[in-house]
């Protein structure tokens, strides 16, 4: 039995596929989208994460984290105001250059301000966990969504999980960047009911410049999935100044049209900056920041996509 690595499981997921779903988020991704709102999904290794909100302050926990760290990677950080008492609390800062993500501090942080992001499951354990929510899927027409990161990077694990879910009659969606050899993608086709499939840019050079990989493989896999009779829910993250020009949206829509009946819906996902704070949990760096596209802009793009005879929605 194979083990896989997840960074989250989210029940009552109402936006990743039909009905009410539970989404399993797998850790690790070959792409590096600057707008990514789940930065903790990118690295394959476990990462130390620090959430200021949960920190009780060094006085309350008697600096257990600092004492536990074998690398002296935890120093005193910014002050924060306690929501209830109004007191100023001394919190911590992780020196990322010294931290090797061993998790010794997280082990001693009972408040779970410091946690090691990433948890390993055997495929059987994950399937059993997901099956606990089956009654909700049954009443809502929902199911499980396997998301990431890029789930295809853990293909052996994913296939075992998919098999386990299908054996129990669960509707399964796979949320993918599409970036994997076709032989890998093909192994999922017997089990997946719906692919949530990202198309970020139609120009391969621009695609590579932004996210680090070209798009030919992604497009080829989409065509092959369509040819294999699979259903796709295409998702276009609408990123200001990157892919929101009319030319690219038209090209994307034309490509979807070409895929024919396979494409059930094209969802336009407006960029949002709610992930910004998450970067600070796992690094000192900040991601790109941009103004989210206006409602008018989104409506305009939706009309363009719809004009290709596609079922377009703003998500």
């Amino acid at each position, binding site marked *: 039995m194979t083990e896989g690595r997840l960074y989250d499981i989210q029940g009552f997921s109402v936006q990743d596929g039909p009905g009410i779903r539970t989404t399993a988020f797998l850790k690790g991704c070959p792409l590096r989208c600057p707008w990514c709102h789940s930065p903790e999904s990118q690295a394959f290794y476990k990462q130390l994460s620090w959430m200021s909100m949960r920190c009780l302050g060094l006085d309350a*926990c008697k600096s257990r984290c600092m004492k536990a760290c074998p690398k002296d990677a935890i120093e005193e950080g910014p002050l924060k105001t306690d929501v209830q008492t109004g007191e100023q609390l001394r919190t911590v800062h992780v020196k990322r250059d010294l931290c090797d993500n061993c998790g010794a501090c997280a082990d001693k942080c009972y408040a779970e301000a410091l946690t090691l992001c990433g948890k390993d499951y055997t495929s059987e354990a994950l399937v059993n966990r997901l099956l606990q929510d089956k009654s*909700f899927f049954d009443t809502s027409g929902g199911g499980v969504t396997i998301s990431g990161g890029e789930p295809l990077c853990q293909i052996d694990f994913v296939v075992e999980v998919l098999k386990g879910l299908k054996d129990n009659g669960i509707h399964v969606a796979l949320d993918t960047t599409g970036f994997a050899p076709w032989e890998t993608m093909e192994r999922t086709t017997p089990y997946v009911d719906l692919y949530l499939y990202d198309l970020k840019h139609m120009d391969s050079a621009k695609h590579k410049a932004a996210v680090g990989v070209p798009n030919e493989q992604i497009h080829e896999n989409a065509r092959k999935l369509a040819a294999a009779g699979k259903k796709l829910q295409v998702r276009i993250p609408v990123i200001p100044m990157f892919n929101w020009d009319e030319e690219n949206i038209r090209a994307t829509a034309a490509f979807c049209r070409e895929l024919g009946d396979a494409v059930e819906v094209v969802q336009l996902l407006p960029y949002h900056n709610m992930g910004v704070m998450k970067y600070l949990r796992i690094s000192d760096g900040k991601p790109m920041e941009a103004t989210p596209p206006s409602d008018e802009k989104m409506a305009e793009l939706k009309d363009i996509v719809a004009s290709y005879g596609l079922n377009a929605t703003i998500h």
Partner: protein
Amino acid sequence: MYQNAPISERVAMIRAMYRAKKPRIDLARYKLVTEFYMNNPQLPGVLKRARNLRNLFEKMPTPVRDHELIVGHLGEEFRASAVYPEHSFQWVLDELDVFPTRSVDPYDLNPEDREYILKTGDFWIKNATCAAIDEVFPEEYYRDLLGNGVLNFTAKNNSGSPIGHYCGNYWTVVDRGLGSVLEEIRAKKAALLEKGLQGNEGQTLQFYRAEETVVEGIILYAKRYAAEALRQAETCKDEKRRAELLDIADRMNRVIDKPCQSYHDALQACFFYQLGLLMDSQPHGISYGRLDQYCGKYAEADIASGKLTREQAQELTDMFILKVAEINKLWSEGATRTGPGYTSGQLITLGGVDKDGNDATNVVTYMVMQASARLKLHNPPLALRVHEGTPDELWEAGIETTKQVGGVPLFEWDKVAMESLMRRGIPLEDARNYCLIGCVEPCICGCDFANSGGDGNNAYTILPAALWCAINNGINPFPTLHRSTVKKELKPTGPQCGYLYEMTSMQQVLDAYKAQIDFFTKWQVTMVNCYEYLYAMNNPLPLLSATMTGCIESGRDVMWGGAKYNGAGNSSIGHGTVADSLNIIDQVCFRDKIATTRELYDALINNWEGYEDLHQYILGRCSHFGNNDPEADKYLKFVADTYSEGITRGTSPRGCHWTAGCWPVTLNVVMGMFCDATPDGRKRGAPLSDGISPVQGMDKNGPFATINSILKFDQANYANGTLCNMKFHPTALQGAEGDKKLRAVMETYFRGGGMELQINVVSAKMLREAQEKPKDYEDLVVRIAGFSAYFVEVYKEAQDDLIRRTEMSI
């Protein structure tokens, strides 16, 4: 998609008046009752109550206000609040000067009325029923149990509420008219005298005399309103209003006495009958039951024949709901904290099935819900019965209403509620005719004196206090609630099972807890049964008995067990707190051996001070109830079953078993203030868990896990109802798709064995904003516990508790 139709001008005006008017204490009822009681000390209980009520029917003011189409008032002024001194009065005298300025539900009081109360109030100190309560309660309780904190039979002479919590038989009033009941009573009485009284029939005769007195009285009372409408019509210049007044006069001459002929008649009859019940006894969970079933056929006939348009029918429904909303329950400040927001607990039940099991939805089901939604009224509370055959349209209407008016309606699942009633011994056909009473208590409509509120004041068993007694040799260490009355050293009040630090196995802890629950539930039953003895003597309910199936037939008042079915209900508080506490004791002291029982005990006694490591470890590292972890959740079942077995063992003087419930109103907050730190990591004074939900903030794995955990005990053992609050973020449930998903969550809970759900669709952010800017959120209605309220009218601690309840969001 479901949408609200526009409100008529007249309704908009009444609603504006309702929201703007601060309720006033009205002495019309008080003066008549005081005078009557002073002049008639010779009358025995059943006759005293009947003639007192008759006197009120003959003399109470009969205001017919401009614009009204449905009439009836408990006093002179709009939103007047009547005073009920017969039950208890000391608290009114104590708080007389606080009413206008108190922070929860203030009431105005005229200076001359204040004087009148001061002049006459002393009479009631010895003449109110609760003075006698102190006499009938066993002195052993006061000697050995005072200050236990599990039960709250404490202070003398201040039991604020009478036995309430019932639903009359409105079908009799609407379909038959009380005129025919009066004939039946007279025939019974005549036959009895003809035959000669045998055995105990002296009591039976007094019962029929009482019944005759009050039924004649309420018919007369209706006709007095007719006379007033006619009087106004004679001088009315506005032709349209004149016609309306004549119509009111005609109606008030017929309804109550004779069968109803129209939807308008039916609404008026239901309202007026309820008014009669409220004239007799304080509004304490006196519920309407299945209004749509009483009135549906009349509405459908009127709409089909063209007598009413749908809009006119809706306007009448709106006006009816506003009339019900107008009635307040004046409570002491302390008691008001358990149910803030001018609630009167007149729950209306909608939907469900008919006696053959077919869906019973009709046009009134929708119109009542529409009235709540478009008027944004939390009062009266609504319960929607749902089942496998509930139409999609009704689900949609219910969900859209609850999104607009937080928690209205609450949703009750027929299968589980009916199963719980059948375990009380009620046959299926009658179980199908259940309604909810007070907050969430199932009861058969019109034939069941379920008395779900116990003695009206002490209907609660506080489980975390019993846990404290279990681990502290029978001593509850923090019973500040009674510090004013108990000055002595703390002493054992429960069975002495030793201290936590002496215990060497989890089984010992569980045995000690069970011993406390068995002991305290026995005392709960003992005390309320004493109370019932007194009530049967002093406070029969003659008007209720006139319609309640079984009473006229058997010649016995409802208080004497005359109804076809009987129940005696209790509620409990803190399932989650105790379940989680037992789970933590097991985990920390026995399974993982993180701390010794001595260390945990000392940590609790010291409110975790000096034990911060352990405290943080328990909150952050231990598994908690509410996350679908079988090891943690098994204690919920233990806690739920231990209590329900204990209380259900008891029998009531009316020949039935007691029933278990779990609905805390906001007592989980109030009782938390008087409960010491608990092993689950809760600090001294913090709120206890709400309803059957996990400890606030401890269910960290999302709503699926929370629901799966809650479903681990058999709710059908809780015939007195369970209550489960869920709060959703609005973004999770937008539009028609969101409605479907919410319905799916509810159906999953219900099919898994859930009985009741109430939903708040508001963000924590919005609630915080409402705390800061109450003016901007005057109409925001939220579900608090067993009822809904305007958020801004709720006191701060309860607001905070609501915000803390885990927000189920994406």
